[in-house]
């Protein structure tokens, strides 16, 4: 079969392909600046940050020879004289580069008390004139004479490690290289993860319960009225998060408006004022109100498209109002329920500001702990590990959202 030719003699298929390609390149060039911007200043930095969860450079970089030597050490008896000498010398070099603080901090995350051991050793090694570093170090701090200490050093010396993930799941590597639970008082993160999921779940359910009837009302009212009511839904959406959080503090605190009203109505006594803020209750109430528009808007946009004739048909066929609603109307709203619930859950699982301000102790979520390790304890590896787990959960939900609803269907306002 001969191919069809265009006027200038090239096959039609080729010239079509060429024209298509030109358009594809043009379309891509329009997207390219933003894509590059997002990749360079957003996606790449996040991956780099998450890489810190497995990256473990402090000891490997600052005590390289010691760590190398320890890799060959079998771990039954104390290391040889040479290793002791190396660690003493390298600690002094580290001191000159002012890296001792980093080394001490890194070791301290692993085993409490090692910070003081390192600092003490460095101080004394400086003044030491002799040659028998093994004897000297053990004399400076008797922990140098324990095999466990060297095992910690060997383990933390590894350049890449999964130990932060263990820590994020309340596990640790025992001295004998088995994996076990952290001691009771250091077991917090699994609890926080579960609490985050539980709070997000509750917020999602509360939002659904509050949003469903309202969206139904908005979808069935005449447009003129529903547009007016919709503004009441959109106003919180546009109001600053800090403003809304502030108003919840004002409303819910012990001497706040809600308690005052309850006292005035004699529902509670003056002494019986309820603590509704700076705890998990406060977080739940504030987050529900803040995320409610994200549930109402998708539900409303789905319900708006459902024709009332289905319900009428069900009623005329003998279904009770309730039955018609449950069996005929509700199944048609599932896409809206799915979209709203996923969106609210995704947003609440990574929530930071509101729990930080109104959560007190019992309302802190995983984001708050990531922030704590980023800003205060400076344990960036652990922050990155916790962040990776959180991000992974969010990305799975995001993927589901994209599969079920499609991001291009996401509507704002």
């Amino acid at each position, binding site marked *: 079969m001969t191919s069809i030719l265009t006027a200038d003699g090239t096959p039609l298929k080729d010239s079509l392909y060429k024209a298509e390609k030109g358009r594809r390149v043009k379309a891509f060039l329009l*997207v390219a600046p933003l894509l590059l911007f997002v990749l360079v200043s957003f996606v790449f930095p996040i991956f780099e940050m998450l890489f810190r969860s497995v990256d473990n450079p402090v000891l490997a970089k600052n005590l390289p020879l010691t760590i190398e030597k320890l890799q060959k050490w079998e771990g039954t008896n104390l290391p040889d004289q040479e290793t002791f000498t190396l660690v003493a010398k390298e600690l002094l070099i580290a001191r000159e580069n002012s890296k001792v603080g980093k080394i001490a901090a890194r070791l301290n995350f692993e085993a409490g008390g090692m910070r003081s051991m390192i600092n003490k050793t460095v101080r004394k090694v400086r003044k030491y004139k002799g040659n028998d570093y093994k004897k000297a170090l053990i004399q400076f701090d008797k922990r140098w004479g324990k095999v466990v200490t060297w095992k910690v050093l060997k383990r933390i010396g590894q350049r890449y490690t999964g130990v932060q993930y263990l820590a994020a799941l309340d596990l640790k590597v025992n001295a004998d290289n088995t994996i076990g639970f952290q001691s009771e008082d250091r077991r917090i993160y699994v609890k926080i993860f579960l609490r985050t999921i539980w709070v997000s779940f509750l917020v999602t359910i509360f939002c659904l319960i509050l949003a469903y009837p309202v969206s139904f009302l908005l979808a069935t009212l005449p*447009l003129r009225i529903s547009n007016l009511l919709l503004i009441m839904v959109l106003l919180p959406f546009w109001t600053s998060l800090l403003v809304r959080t502030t108003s919840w503090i004002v409303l819910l605190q012990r001497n706040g408006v809600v308690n*005052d009203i309850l006292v005035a109505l004699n529902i509670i006594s003056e002494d019986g004022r309820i603590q509704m803020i700076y705890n998990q209750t406060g977080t739940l109430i504030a987050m529900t109100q803040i995320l409610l528009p994200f549930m109402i808007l998708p539900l409303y946009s789905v319900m708006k498209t459902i024709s009332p004739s289905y319900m009428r048909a069900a009623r005329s066929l003998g279904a009770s109002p309730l039955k018609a609603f449950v069996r005929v109307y509700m199944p048609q709203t599932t896409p809206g329920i799915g979209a709203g619930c996923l969106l609210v859950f995704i947003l609440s699982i990574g929530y930071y500001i509101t729990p930080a301000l109104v959560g007190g102790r019992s309302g802190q979520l995983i984001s708050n702990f990531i922030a704590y390790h980023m800003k205060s304890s400076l344990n960036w590896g652990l922050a990155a590990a916790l962040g990776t787990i959180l991000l992974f959960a969010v990305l799975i939900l995001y993927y589901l959202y994209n599969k079920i609803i499609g991001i291009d269907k996401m509507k704002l306002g």
Partner: protein
Amino acid sequence: MVFPPHLGIGGKIAHYSFILFCGFVFVFLVAPILVIIPLSFNAEPYFTFTEGMISFEPEAYSIRWYADIAKNPQWAFSAANSIIVATCSTFLATLLGTLAALGLSQSHMPYKSAVMGVLISPMIVPLIISAAGMFFFYSNIGLAQTLPGLILAHAVLGTPFVVITVTATLTGFDHSLTRASQSLGADSRKTFFKIQMPLILPGVISGALFAFITSFDEVVIVFFLAGFEQRTIPRQMWAGIREQISPTILAVATILVVVSILLLTTVELLRRRNERLRGISTS
């Protein structure tokens, strides 16, 4: 309310409790925002209504907390920062986002859904993770604790909103209009500015407003990236809530509520204009 004659007493009760419940939800949504407006005029440093306020005595009300804002240079300083950062990042986000949306809405765009997934990700990734990542990135390139760094960081956060709103406007776009314009002799630049641009403008503006409010309201990134010199209003409010919560915060909050009402009204008007232009009547 006119009920159909077949509705029994149970149906009426169900209907009224439904209306009551919806009323409660609307109160729940709006009351917390509105309640701070009268409270910000409280003459006493309390966060609740005094007896004088309830009986509408004029002495119980004052504008002293607003005077406080004016007296404290910190607020003016952070307001200036907020406006600079929000304006610049909005401009950047709108420019890049609109271009990208124009490309994304073409049927020839390769890897459309993957690209869209990446472009929307700043909206989905928990802020604390974005903030941590950007903290290291901007520190490494020397832009941490500078306004340009903050502007770039906020611009990334704002772009998904622009992409979403402009793509949504373009889905209803009638491409025969561009063809008509071209067949009448306009070149592609003229077609863009005379035909496409006016039609997608409402989408662009509402996307820009979303980007603006995102930056204006953002505090987590500011927390990580900004030093004292780059404090913005939300950061200042955060400090106020955490450290010495005074009714001045309520006065600032009231001003912000007024700003958001203005923004919301603008977006609503634009949305209606857009629907009218595209022939989708609202009534």
